[in-house]
């Protein structure tokens, strides 16, 4: 009968084995002493007393073994033996152990890291309450950026009141840029990013504050007391995690704002809704303030229990087309559309394919690693064949031997997994803090329970995979044959060789697929970098500028002129200008129509991206004027209604005619077209450019924030201090906002592609290295085994170059078969990633040929080293070796 207590004690005993051993040894020693003493008292001689005592005791070692047996669990003890033996083996062969563990660590670590990313972005539900009920509502065919993905205050309220599918519908104002607030404290004003959210936004998501409370309905009324909710990192970093801050006031943009609460650490607005952005604080979105401002809310809703997405969609299809843009101005027209998408799907759905490709790529790496290890172990198996045959001959069971081998594989895999986990942890903490990679949810990536489970699973699977082949080989097979076969004979181990060659061919094929995939992605990425963006990102940088014009347009114009002219005084600055929006960051659009050409009604308005700018901005950005002129300060100070269009917009409004001097209705004003610029990619490098217009900052066209753009050959870092100095001369309250290179905006936009290219490229390189190691291992091993054979051939007259050629041709044969298999697989698999490519054919010959050349060269190099060694064999030495 084994009770629970006993099992527990036995397990404990396993871990305290050494101490228990020494204790019982001491006990036995004292036992013997006592026996000897008693025998001496009985009158025996010292020697005889000792002899008798030992006889009565009956064997110290046996007693110790019995003690061990009865105190521990049998399987634990066997495991212990296996482990001890394994460690002894690995220590003796530490070179092999280190290489094996490192290779495994690379493979498993890469897999853990990618799994964590996949898990975070694709698999794990969003960190909200019942996230499956959350839905994002967006116009069906958004043409003009954020403005065409949003709804007016009136339409939002109509939808909130009339729908029957949603528990609640709320939204946020997506048009604010970074650093739109300044937090004024005791020291320099600090920039902060604030976001306006509509009533019930946090309740809809199911986010509870970690301190304080959420907004109350009355706080969404006009002219109510200003209140704010803080994000957790902002509260920790800027306000020192002070709990008493709740209920007290902070100074934002010279306004006293009461902090009512702090959001939980798990809530990261940017990660979900605006990748790469960080939001520091939230304020109420007051509907009445934005009622006349057009589309301003990005909508999120929570479905009622039991309502399906399809039901909600059909209701939205019915309701939204009836809604007026603005109740006050029915003449502006009506008719929205709404595409309802599961929030999770909206956030990460388009990344699914890329991530799955990444996952497969890293899976291939693990396969290559396993194949490589299998090979290493096979080589060892050959060397240890005799040892195992000997052990079988001495009575070790086949099961016991397989178990021993499996223990070795598991120990290697476990060590690899632990180090790999360390690798992955490093990579992930790096990735989580990369604000420049605009992948959603990436900021939330971390090693969690499911990642650890996955690691365990992978380690075991890998151990089984790479341990299987050597295990089977070692335990099967004819004893005698092995004992006979294991001498360094001539053509021995052909069968062995074939198995190892097959594995190497597999490796080469896998590496080939990875290389081709990486090559195609890289080519796409280069194509993207080659795109003419319509502006020159290099040698320009921007800074968010703060000033106080007191709502006076003339004063604002004067300040803008002052800022640009002073910036131009900084040595090295070539041009400077101001805009309220930069390309590839936030955007907005207005309706625009050509005057006089068509009958005027609301339907002729087409959405166009709007930029309110100063003279010199186009030049500072490196945008190219094709026709007409740039704005000048007179346009601004005289409130002249002028407009610069991009080529696509001009062509759309007046196909085939010269647009200069014609009139458009922009922002409700008749404006004269004074210039046309080359198209600028305003949202994304890969999309085609939309319609744009550049308006002077005048009475009619008020800017939303302002960025000073400076062009200079000098690096931005060296200009930053000078620019900040000039800005502080004009406004001492200028917060310490960052002077950002325009290139960073482009990098931001291309970062997801770069992310995938880098990862797949890294995996391909890893695969290539591992495959070449595999080739090297096999060829080098076969040269070693054939040393004698080669010696004989050379003695019979084979030349060095013949020997070399023979080895290289063997390598080449392996590589050729591997590459052939790889190409076929690549051609099939490349079709699957076609949608991830940009202007690149999935069977792009250049990529295929160059990747094959790389693989071929590496394979030959891997074969050349052992070939050279083979040709250096001295026949006399080789023949004498036996």
């Amino acid at each position: 009968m084994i009770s629970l207590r006993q099992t527990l004690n036995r397990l404990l005993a396993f871990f305290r084995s050494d101490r228990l051993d020494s204790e019982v040894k001491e006990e036995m020693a004292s036992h013997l002493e006592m026996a000897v003493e008693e025998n001496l008292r009985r009158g025996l001689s010292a020697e005889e007393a000792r002899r008798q005592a030992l006889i009565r005791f009956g064997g110290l070692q046996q007693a110790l073994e019995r003690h061990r047996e009865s105190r521990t669990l049998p399987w634990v003890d066997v495991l212990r033996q296996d482990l001890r033996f394994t460690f002894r083996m690995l220590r003796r062969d530490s070179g092999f152990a280190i290489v094996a563990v490192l290779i495994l660590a690379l493979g498993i670590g890469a897999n853990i890291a990618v799994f964590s990313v996949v898990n975070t972005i694709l698999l794990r539900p969003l960190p909200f309450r019942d996230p499956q009920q959350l839905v994002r509502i967006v116009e069906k065919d958004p043409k003009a950026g954020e403005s065409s993905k949003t709804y007016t205050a009136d339409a939002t309220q109509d939808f909130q009141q009339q729908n029957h599918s949603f528990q609640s519908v709320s939204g946020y104002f997506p048009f604010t840029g970074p650093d739109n607030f300044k937090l004024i404290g005791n020291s320099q004003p600090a920039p902060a990013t604030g976001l306006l959210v509509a009533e019930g936004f946090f309740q809809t998501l199911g986010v509870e504050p970690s301190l304080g409370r959420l907004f109350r309905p009355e706080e969404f009324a006009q002219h109510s007391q200003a209140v704010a909710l803080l994000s957790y990192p902002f509260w920790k970093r800027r306000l020192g995690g002070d709990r008493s801050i709740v209920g007290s006031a902070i100074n934002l943009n010279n306004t006293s704002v009461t902090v009512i609460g702090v959001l939980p650490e798990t809530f990261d607005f940017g990660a979900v809704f605006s990748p790469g952005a960080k939001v520091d604080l939230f304020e109420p979105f007051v509907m009445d303030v934005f009622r006349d401002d057009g589309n301003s809310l990005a909508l999120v809703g929570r479905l009622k229990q039991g309502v399906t997405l399809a039901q909600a969609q059909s209701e939205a299809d019915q309701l939204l087309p009836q809604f007026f843009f603005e109740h006050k101005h029915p003449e502006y027209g009506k008719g929205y559309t709404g595409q309802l998408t599961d929030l999770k799907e909206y956030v990460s759905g388009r990344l699914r394919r890329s991530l799955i490709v990444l996952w497969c790529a890293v899976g291939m790496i693990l396969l290559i690693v396993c194949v490589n290890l299998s090979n290493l172990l096979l080589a060892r198996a050959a060397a240890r064949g005799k040892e195992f045959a000997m052990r079988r001959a001495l009575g070790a069971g086949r099961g016991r031997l397989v178990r021993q081998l499996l223990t070795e594989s598991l120990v290697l895999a476990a060590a690899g997994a632990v180090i790999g986990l360390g690798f992955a942890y490093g990579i992930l903490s790096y990735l989580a803090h990369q604000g420049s990679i605009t992948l959603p949810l990436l900021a939330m990536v971390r090693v969690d329970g499911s990642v650890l489970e996955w690691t365990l699973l992978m380690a075991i699977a890998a151990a089984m995979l790479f341990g299987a082949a050597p295990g089977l080989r070692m335990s099967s097979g004819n004893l005698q044959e092995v004992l006979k076969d294991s001498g360094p004979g001539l053509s021995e181990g052909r069968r062995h060789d074939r198995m190892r060659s097959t594995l190497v061919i597999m490796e080469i094929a896998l590496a080939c697929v990875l290389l081709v995939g990486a090559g195609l992605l890289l080519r796409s990425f280069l194509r993207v970098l080659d795109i003419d963006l319509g502006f020159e990102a290099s040698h320009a940088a921007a800074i968010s500028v703060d000033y106080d014009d007191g709502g006076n347009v003339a004063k604002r114009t004067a300040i803008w002129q002052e800022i640009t002219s002073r910036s131009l005084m900084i040595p090295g600055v070539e041009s400077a200008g101001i805009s309220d929006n930069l390309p590839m960051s936030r955007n907005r659009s207005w309706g625009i129509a050509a005057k006089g050409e068509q009958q005027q009604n609301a339907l002729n308005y087409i959405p166009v991206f709007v930029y309110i700018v100063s003279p010199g901005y186009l030049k500072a950005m490196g945008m190219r004027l094709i026709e007409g002129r740039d704005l000048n300060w007179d346009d601004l100070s005289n409130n002249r209604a002028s407009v610069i269009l991009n080529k696509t917009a001009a062509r759309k409004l007046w196909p085939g005619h010269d647009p200069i001097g014609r009139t458009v209705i922009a922002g409700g004003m008749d404006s004269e077209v004074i210039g046309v610029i080359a198209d600028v990619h305003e949202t994304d490098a890969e999309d085609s450019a939309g319609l744009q217009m550049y308006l002077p900052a005048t009475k009619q066209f008020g800017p939303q924030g302002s960025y000073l753009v400076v062009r200079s050959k000098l690096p931005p870092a060296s200009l930053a201090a000078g620019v900040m100095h000039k800005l502080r001369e004009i406004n001492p309250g200028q917060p310490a906002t960052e002077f950002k290179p325009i290139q960073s905006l482009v990098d931001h936009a291309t970062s997801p592609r770069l992310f995938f290219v880098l990862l797949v490229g890294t995996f391909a390189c890893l695969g290539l290295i591992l495959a070449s190691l595999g080739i090297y291992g096999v060829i080098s091993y076969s040269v070693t085994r054939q040393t004698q054979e080669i010696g004989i051939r050379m003695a019979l007259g084979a030349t060095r170059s013949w020997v070399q050629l023979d080895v290289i041709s063997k390598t080449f044969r392996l590589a050729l078969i591997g590459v052939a298999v790889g190409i076929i697989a690549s051609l099939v698999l490349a079709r699957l990633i076609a949608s991830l490519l940009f202007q690149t054919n999935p069977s792009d010959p250049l990529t295929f040929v160059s990747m094959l050349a790389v693989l071929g060269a590496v394979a030959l190099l891997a074969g050349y080293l052992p070939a050279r060694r083979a040709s250096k064999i001295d026949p006399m030495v080789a023949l004498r070796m036996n």
Partner: protein
Amino acid sequence: MGQSKLDLLQGTLDVMVLQTLHVLGPLHGYGIARRIEQVSGDEVLLNQGTIYASLVRLQQRGWISAKWGTSDNNRKAKFYAITKLGQKQLLRDAAHWQRLAEVMGRVLAMQDKGGQR
């Protein structure tokens, strides 16, 4: 010594150890082994070393406890004592062995009377 000794049945050593500790109080391994040998009138084939496997087993079951101490002749030794749990177990085991011995006795007696050997 010439005459053959009794081989110990599985589990009997444990009962002997418990009984010895029950009657004599705390003892070290050597003491227990000697005592069993003496009581059995040197009838039992006991490798004294086996006592330690039995002791660790009993200890893990919680039937005896152990602590280091000094023997009469000032030698460091581990002293074992029976626990409450061990007392209970001893009662059960003793009853079991007694019944078994009786049954064996009766069975063997019956065969004797029958006299059909």
